[in-house]
């Protein structure tokens, strides 16, 4: 199904259910992975993913098709995930970095994490990066999103993204080699 066709079906009450099923089956897995990489915890990811699809559904009629549905949904998911962490930090009267550190510390006891020391070390290394650089690294390294797509999602030039990823890799390698 073409993207335009999918959007039209989503906006039509008669075809909405079928189209939404398609949207969920196409996007829930990649968006889950994207959100989980940001918020770390599975239950938090579940909340953010729900909020993301609700927002997508509510704002679909305002979607002008200037960007691809893929990048538009990723943008919403990214904003929702970052907002979620910030709100959690505000509620706990702490920083978003502290919230992420705690989430990584809890990974060992997490039922939905089957990594070992090296994975935890990598997550800790990512935390030393600035917020935007963390996003770039996770989207490229774990999700393997192309720079062109990433540029549309994050609103940053391809050149800047490549440079950012390169610096992120160097910092992470240094951190992991030393510790």
């Amino acid at each position, binding site marked *: 199904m073409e993207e335009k066709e999918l959007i039209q079906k989503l906006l039509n009450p008669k075809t909405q*259910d079928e189209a*939404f*099923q398609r949207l*969920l*089956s196409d996007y*829930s*897995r990649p968006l*889950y*992975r994207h959100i*989980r*990489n940001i918020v770390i915890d*599975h239950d938090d990811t*579940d909340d953010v*993913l*729900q909020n993301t*699809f*609700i927002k997508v*559904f*509510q704002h679909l009629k305002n979607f002008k098709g200037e960007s691809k549905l893929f990048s538009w949904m990723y943008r919403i998911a990214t904003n929702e995930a970052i907002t979620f962490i910030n709100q959690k930090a505000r509620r706990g009267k702490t920083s978003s970095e502290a919230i992420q550190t705690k989430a990584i510390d809890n*990974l060992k006891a997490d*039922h*939905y*994490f*089957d*990594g*070992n020391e*090296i*994975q935890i070390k*990598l997550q800790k290394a990512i935390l030393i990066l600035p917020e935007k650089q963390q996003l770039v690294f996770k989207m490229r*390294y*774990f999700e393997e999103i192309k720079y062109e797509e990433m540029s549309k999602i994050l609103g940053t030039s391809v050149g800047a993204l490549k440079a950012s990823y390169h610096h992120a*890799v160097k910092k*992470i*390698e240094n951190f*992991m*080699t*030393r510790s």
Partner: protein
Amino acid sequence: MKKIDLQHNPKIASGFKTPDGYFEDFAEKMRTQLSQNDTKVVSINSNRKNWLYAAAAIFVIAMSIPVYNALKTQTLNLDQLTLENYITNNAHISEREFAELLDEEDIQKIKINSSIEDKAIEDLLSTNANLEEYLIN
């Protein structure tokens, strides 16, 4: 210490996994949630809009009262000030100038007042025993 090389070493997986059947359950959960949310959102939004319009109208009216009062007071003050200035600046008006300002009607009113005064004088004079003395002196 072993050097870590992310570019050339085998990729380190994130290690994140999901509960069994999570995405199937998620799709079902979303369908239910969106059908409920859709109805609620419309009604809440329309009610909220009406309340917003009403609140905005009351706010505008409430804000306009002190502005109206201020403007009204300012106009009155200005009139009194103008009047005071006029009186101050025109305190040297001569009797002749006053007379010129009087029209026929004013003069008639003055005449009536004068006749009453005349009558009072006559009465006073007729009942006054010392009239002759006043006339002599």
